[in-house]
């Protein structure tokens, strides 16, 4: 077992990372040791990354213990790079984290300076000097390369910078030169942000934290109204919104809500979140309040510009869309569904459900002249899966049964219609799938069942009977 992380006291006592535990215990028998919990560490890092979203939407993870923030174009919002760095570090320090950071033009250099240097803001012209002063460990090379560099006495990056490139590449591989170039900005290095950047977003920083649902919704509507203009400029309306709530103590909540048709109206946007907040009421712990709110438009779509009528009522189209949005926001998109017809003769494949929010009808009563619609009678209720029945006295080879037992109840068949043969779809089922012969069977009390025979008489194994639905 080895030490993976040490605190300040241990550092002062010259314990090192990677040291064997037995050795450390021998030096200082009184040290406290805890097992590493990688998942918890990662969760903490993710939480800090979430918190850092307040500075920039582009936050990426750097290994197990670092974060990259792409602050291109954001630093002026926080009073310049210097002030921003101080703000980040001070706030994290107040939360109890010992954090070092630096701002430079490349991720590689920032990472190196934060870990091995003194931190701070590195100007573009000082980059080479700053990098040169660091040990070669700072270049993010693999251990073998570092060891061989050290063996040759190349301890500082400056030693490498002054050497000709071609022999270096021959000796240590292309990776080292790539790392050098990345740190100095001659080779572009991309960071991979944790979340996709929202096409549109707006935010509010609050002096006084808010706690109640009404306040949150009111603030959401206000933020939405500032988004309205940029949506109008794009001729778009938002379809998926995300509300990000930053709690005072650093916890971040993300609530997303979808709309069935593009939205711009602030009131309706905040209405979406009102259902969502109702639904997740217990999970949203306001604590001491939220100090920072952001509204992201994750997806937007073309907004149909329509002249509203003078009465001010949107009519049925809007109210239906509203209802779908409210239900989907409250119970999830899977709650409210519509039927979609598929080109299949197998009854359970012919009609499937898709979420209503995905396909809002523009013309609800369109003629359904689809050539593949079956002309034969179909049941009103279709069982989830066909249930086996015991059929008696069926007319061999292709007649209906005269009695059958379903769920322990015997039904005596008085009339029957059929069979309607539905062949299996060999491209989905396999080649040996059996065909179904469907019968409509009327029992003596007038109940009408849809029963089929799977397979043929004379085959081995003998055919089985299933019930698949009921008619009116």
């Amino acid at each position, binding site marked *: 077992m080895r030490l993976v992380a040490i605190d300040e006291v241990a550092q002062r006592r010259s314990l090192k990372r990677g040291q064997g535990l037995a050795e450390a215990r021998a030096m200082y028998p009184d040290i406290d040791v805890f097992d590493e919990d990688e998942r918890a560490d990662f969760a903490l890092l993710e939480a800090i990354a979430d918190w850092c979203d307040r500075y920039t939407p582009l936050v990426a993870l750097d290994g197990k213990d670092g974060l990259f923030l792409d602050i291109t174009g954001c630093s002026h919002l926080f009073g310049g790079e210097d002030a921003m760095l101080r703000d980040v570090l001070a706030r994290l320090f107040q939360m109890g984290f010992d954090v070092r950071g630096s701002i430079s033009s490349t991720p590689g250099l920032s990472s190196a300076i934060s870990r091995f240097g003194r931190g701070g803001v590195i100007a573009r012209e000082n980059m080479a000097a700053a990098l040169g002063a660091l040990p070669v460990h700072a270049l993010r090379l693999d251990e073998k390369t570092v060891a061989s560099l050290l063996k040759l006495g190349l301890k500082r990056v400056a030693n490498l910078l002054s050497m000709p490139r071609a022999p270096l590449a021959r000796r240590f591989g292309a990776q080292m030169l790539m790392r050098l170039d990345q740190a100095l900005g001659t080779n572009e290095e991309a960071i991979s942000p944790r979340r996709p950047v929202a096409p549109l977003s707006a935010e509010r920083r609050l002096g006084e934290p808010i706690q109640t649902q009404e306040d949150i919704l009111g603030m959401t509507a206000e933020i939405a109204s500032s988004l309205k203009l940029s949506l109008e400029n794009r001729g778009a309306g938002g379809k998926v919104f995300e509300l990000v709530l930053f709690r005072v103590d650093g916890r971040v909540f993300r609530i997303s809500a979808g709309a069935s048709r593009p939205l711009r109206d602030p009131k309706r946007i905040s209405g979406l979140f009102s259902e969502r907040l109702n639904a997740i009421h217990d999970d949203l712990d306001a604590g001491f309040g939220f100090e920072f709110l952001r509204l992201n438009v994750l997806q937007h779509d073309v907004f149909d510009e329509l002249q509203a009528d003078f009465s001010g009522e949107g009519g*049925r189209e809007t109210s239906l869309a509203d209802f779908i949005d409210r239900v989907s926001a409250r119970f999830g998109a899977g*709650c409210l569904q519509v*039927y979609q017809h598929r080109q299949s003769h197998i009854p359970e494949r012919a009609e499937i459900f898709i979420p209503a929010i995905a396909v809002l009808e523009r013309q609800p009563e369109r003629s359904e002249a689809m050539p593949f619609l079956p002309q034969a009678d*179909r049941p009103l209720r*279709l069982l989830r899966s066909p249930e086996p029945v015991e059929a008696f006295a069926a007319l061999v080879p292709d007649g209906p049964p005269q009695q059958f037992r379903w769920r322990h109840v015997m039904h*005596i068949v008085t*009339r029957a219609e059929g069979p309607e043969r539905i062949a299996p779809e060999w491209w989905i089922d396999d080649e040996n799938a059996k065909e179904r012969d469907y019968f409509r069977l009327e029992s003596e009390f007038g109940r009408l069942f849809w029963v089929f025979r799977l397979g043929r008489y004379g085959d081995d194994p003998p055919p089985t009977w299933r019930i698949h639905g009921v008619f009116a």
Partner: protein
Amino acid sequence: MAHAAAAQEKLFALREQIARLEGRSLPAMAAAKMENFAARSSGEEKLSFDIAALDDALSGGLPLDCITEIRSGSFSDAGAATGFSLSLVGLMKARKAAAGPMLWIADGFSTSEMGIPYAGGIRQFGIGSRTIFHASPRRLEDALWLAEGALESKAFIATIFEIHGNPKAFGLAESRRLSLRAKAAGRPLFLLRHAGEEEASSASFRLFVEPAPALERRLPDGSMLGGSIGHPVFNITLEKSRNPAPLSFRLEWNLHDRQFHLARDPGKSSFHKWPAHSGASLSVSADRQDCPKALGDVVAFERAS
């Protein structure tokens, strides 16, 4: 004399108030309506069945701004109850030429027991599958919220609210609430209760549905095709209405004309010749006697839930 006239007027006013509370058409106003507003369609819409006896019993037809309960005795009759409620929607569409979607609020248990409503079959009832919205709430409270929201939004021409049994969470207060919503929105709510008991509720009508043997298919020359299974037939019992006694009708829903007809008694089926005595369909009672009959008249139903 003037005193008597004033008393009379007060009496009329009270009667009107009572009528308004009960949701009936106002007695004093009724006559006036006939004279003055004959040309104008009256405020309340009614769904007439075009069957004189049934329409009379319903005092003109099913009102389309309140709850109509459709009850079946057991789950095995779910097909008939489903069919009847959908045929009401089909009739609405045929009558009013009302375009618009309908909402089916499904009950999870009924769905797993008797299957999901199948668009292929519903289409034959005259309701396009694109116009059906299918909601599957997890709890009854969610279903109530959905029903209320659907009525409130006025987006659906009809809402079918499926429940099973007599759940405690859906009692008189909840049904009153839904009924007021329906009244305010002017949209019908069909409460489809599978395997439920009669229960006091705010539904203006309650219909008990049983399946009945279908008639045979009609041939173009008017004769019947022997042994075939034609349009669905329902045995409807008007359990709750303004009539003193429950009335029963046997209705055939014509899938092509989208219309109800009174069904004649079916003739003998020609498909099978069963022996005269096929054995008792019920076992002989054993163990103990049947429970004693309740004494007195039923004045009001107790809560079954």
